[in-house]
């Protein structure tokens, strides 16, 4: 009970533009679910179908056990926060917050109580008499959030609400939204293309590509075990290095030949990879799994040339080229420095490597500790 379920939901625009393709998703009651994906992957369309702003071509949307495909948006008891806030321009902040309640014929004292409470919670009590154009982006964002909260809906739908804010404000609003979710304990479906937002805010993330769901899971679970090369390349920044590779058998055992170098496969992966012997595939290794010192025998040396050095403060990101010229990223400690053009020996932690099938992009599963 109390959950939002999508069963085989599709959306086709016009006669043949498939925006959402047979999506199955269950958002549990009180859960913070993030829909993540690049522009045009269909995540916003999914949200808009849940809201009722877009008709469902096929499939069912079920809320709290009831099918809501044909229920009017106003009667779904959902509140949406838009990317560009969509405030009523000529209404004061108080007017914006109370409009929905007035339309629902909520008694006046109750409206006043809820508006005051919401304004206090969001720290906008002093702004109640102002018009939207007199507010900063962050303040408008809060009002938009307040307009959703004041209705105390069944669930909140966030359509990239942080993407119009500057980087600093976005970080602080992120924290506030997490806190707010803990306080309200209401279901939130948050759409974003920002993987940092997804990683930090979501209790679960649902990654979409070309209208389909590719993977659903806890953020760290998805980070550690991406289902395919797309997820691997999309999550985290800098994202996982994906290198064309061939899996070969040698006297020393199974090796991956990639980037002009030869990397032995850890023994624990040999059984899983054995069936792919001789095949081309894609090697995935995260920038943070390249080190300057080996920690165990599965840290394999790779000689690279330094292309660029990005000293970010907390860390240093190197772009280096492999012997065959392929450029990859390495994320090293903050004290690290290197000359551009110099030769460097890095150690790839093969315990944390991934191998994806070349054709399908699907990960070849391995047992991990």
């Amino acid at each position, binding site marked *: 009970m109390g959950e939002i379920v999508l069963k085989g939901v599709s959306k086709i625009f016009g006669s043949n533009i498939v925006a959402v393709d047979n999506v199955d998703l269950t958002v549990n009651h009180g859960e913070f679910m993030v829909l993540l994906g690049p522009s045009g992957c269909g995540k916003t369309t999914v949200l808009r179908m849940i*809201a*009722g*702003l877009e008709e469902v071509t096929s499939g069912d949307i079920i809320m709290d056990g009831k099918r809501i495909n044909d229920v009017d*948006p*106003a*009667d779904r008891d*959902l*509140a*949406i926060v*838009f*990317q*560009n*806030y*969509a*405030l*009523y*321009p*000529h*209404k004061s902040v108080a007017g914006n917050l109370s*409009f*929905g309640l007035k*339309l*629902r014929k909520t008694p006046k004292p109750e409206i006043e109580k809820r508006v005051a409470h919401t304004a206090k919670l969001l720290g906008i009590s002093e702004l109640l008499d102002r*018009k939207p154009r007199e507010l900063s982006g962050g303040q408008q964002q809060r009002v938009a959030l307040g*307009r959703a909260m004041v*209705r105390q809906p069944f669930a909140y739908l966030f359509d990239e609400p942080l993407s119009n804010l500057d980087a600093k404000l976005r970080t602080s609003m992120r924290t506030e939204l997490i806190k707010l979710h803990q306080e309200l304990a209401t279901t939130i479906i948050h759409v974003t293309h920002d993987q940092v937002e997804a990683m930090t805010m979501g209790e679960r993330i649902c990654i979409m590509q070309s209208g389909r769901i590719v993977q659903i899971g806890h953020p760290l679970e998805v980070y550690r075990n991406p289902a395919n090369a797309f997820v691997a390349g999309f999550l985290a920044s800098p994202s996982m290095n994906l290198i064309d590779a061939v899996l070969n058998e040698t006297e020393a055992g199974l090796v991956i030949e990639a980037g002009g170098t030869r990397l032995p496969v850890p023994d624990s992966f040999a059984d899983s990879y054995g069936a792919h012997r001789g095949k081309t595939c894609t090697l995935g290794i995260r920038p943070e799994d390249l080190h300057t010192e080996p920690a165990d025998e599965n840290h394999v040396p790779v000689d690279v040339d330094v292309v660029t050095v990005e000293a970010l403060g907390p860390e240093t990101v190197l772009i280096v080229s492999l012997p065959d010229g392929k450029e990859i990223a390495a994320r090293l400690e903050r004290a690290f420095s290197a000359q551009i053009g110099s030769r460097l020996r890095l150690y790839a932690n093969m315990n944390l490597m991934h191998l994806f099938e070349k054709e399908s992009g699907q990960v070849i599963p391995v047992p991990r500790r």
Partner: protein
Amino acid sequence: MPGLSVLLAVVVFPLGYALLTSFYDYTLIKPTYDNFIGLGNYRGMLEEAYLGTSLWVTLKFVIASVVIEFSLGMAVAVAMNAVTRFKSFYYIILLAPLLINPVVVGLMWRMLLHSELGIVNYVIGLGGIAPINWLGNPKTAFWTVVLVDIWHQISFMVILLLAGLSSLPREPYEAARMDGASPRLCFIHITLPLMRPVIFIALLLRFIFAIKTFDIIYIMTKGGPGVATDLISYFIYRAAFFGLDIGRASAMSVALLILILALTSYLYRYMRSFK
């Protein structure tokens, strides 16, 4: 510099010339600048027997045509904004009247509304309604002229409002839909406030154009019957070319210009204050 000299020649020179003439007793019987009479023409203007009537008719005409054009125009624009198919077809139909020369509009409607030969009376006659003397009766002539002006000018209003409507953001409407607002409430609480700048420009332009209306009056009624449609621009025309008093007509033109400027600037400030 060439641009400036053209501007001087076509705008400033006629204005200055009219202003100069308004201070002289300059008539078509004696077209010379011998007799400087200062503000004499302006004083004389105030003694004109029918000036007040003409101003009143003009005011009624401007208010009636602009208000009806705006209300109808907004309704049509909102309807057209929702149309997805055959939009360009509707545009062409809608734009057609605006592309017709006002003199042609006047002639066309004069024929259509002719009390004995006009097709309008024929058609309403089929429904058993007695023929109406559209332009010959002082009571109907005014509204007939107003309706013809609306027919001619409404597409201007529709096009301007439609351009505004089609550029409005979608999200506030969706937010209102989620809040449970009806289309009527959306119109009042979102469309009108967001459209305010466009509405303001549309009203201001139509207001200025309506005060200057001359062509359809000249063609259809010559200000009559009696003074029922004697708009100020036609009144001035009569002073100049029937009364032959160019000096007096110039004085009235200058006064009208000042009046329009004053009203425009007042309206501009008034509408800007709505924020």
